[in-house]
């Protein structure tokens, strides 16, 4: 069975990079995986999407993602702006960056919210959330933090990889305990 993930972000925030890192992590985890951006002409600031597929069997499918099993939201304001709800399967899980302690969806959706920005600011020194939020996603145990680490180091220059991984780990630990 192929599973699908949508990542929501803004132009310049690195949502596409998140999708690539995740695809690499799934691969290290023994999955077949596929990642691709929403092919738009969006400029810095505009809402963008990126997608990941993973599966135990080779993935042939290449259509867009229409209904996802998971969503990752880099900025809670996008939930409305990008109409995140519409792209979710029933019972999908959503991972949200938000400082607010509120519910964004009805109860057919599982949501986990963390203030990724603050943690990233603290650890990375910049409000880079696209990689650190993957620590939140890793709480699903679909990918291990070790696979994530390898993927992050493959994708980013070492100094950045280190900081981003640390932030992801902090977030992961915060939730998993």
């Amino acid at each position, binding site marked *: 069975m192929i599973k699908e993930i949508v990542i929501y972000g*803004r132009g310049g925030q690195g949502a596409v990079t998140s999708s690539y890192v995740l695809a690499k992590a799934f691969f290290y985890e023994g999955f077949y995986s596929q990642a691709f951006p929403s092919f738009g002409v969006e400029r810095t*600031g505009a*809402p963008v999407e990126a997608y990941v597929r993973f599966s135990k069997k080779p993935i042939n499918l290449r259509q867009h993602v229409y209904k996802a099993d998971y969503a990752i939201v880099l*900025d*809670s*304001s996008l939930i*409305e702006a990008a109409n995140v709800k519409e792209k979710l399967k029933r019972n999908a899980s959503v991972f949200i960056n938000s*400082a*607010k302690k509120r519910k964004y969806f009805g109860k057919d959706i599982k949501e986990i919210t963390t203030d990724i920005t603050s943690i990233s600011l603290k650890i990375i020194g910049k409000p880079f959330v696209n990689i650190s939020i993957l620590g939140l996603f890793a709480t699903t145990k679909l990918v291990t933090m070790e696979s994530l680490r390898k993927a992050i180091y493959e994708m980013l220059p070492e100094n950045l990889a280190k900081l981003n991984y640390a932030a992801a780990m902090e977030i992961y630990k915060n939730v998993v305990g």
Partner: protein
Amino acid sequence: MNKKMKITKGAVIKEPGSTVKYKTGSWRTFRPVIDYEKCIRCGLCWSQCPDMAIEKKGNKFVINYDYCKGCGICAENCPVKAIKMVREEK
């Protein structure tokens, strides 16, 4: 498979300035706020906004948050620092 869309011959767009239907305010993560106490009505912010998001209403310059993308140019260059950039949160 998607629904049909109505189109014009040759893709001509006959409604000038129709991008106003698209509210770029949702792009913003920081919001400029004018402190009219400080503001000296110089209009610099108005003239420097790439999104035509500042309008002159009477002799006051007013930000149209439907379009303001929060670039911060207005705040950066206001001669009297009358504009503050405030984080948007939802």
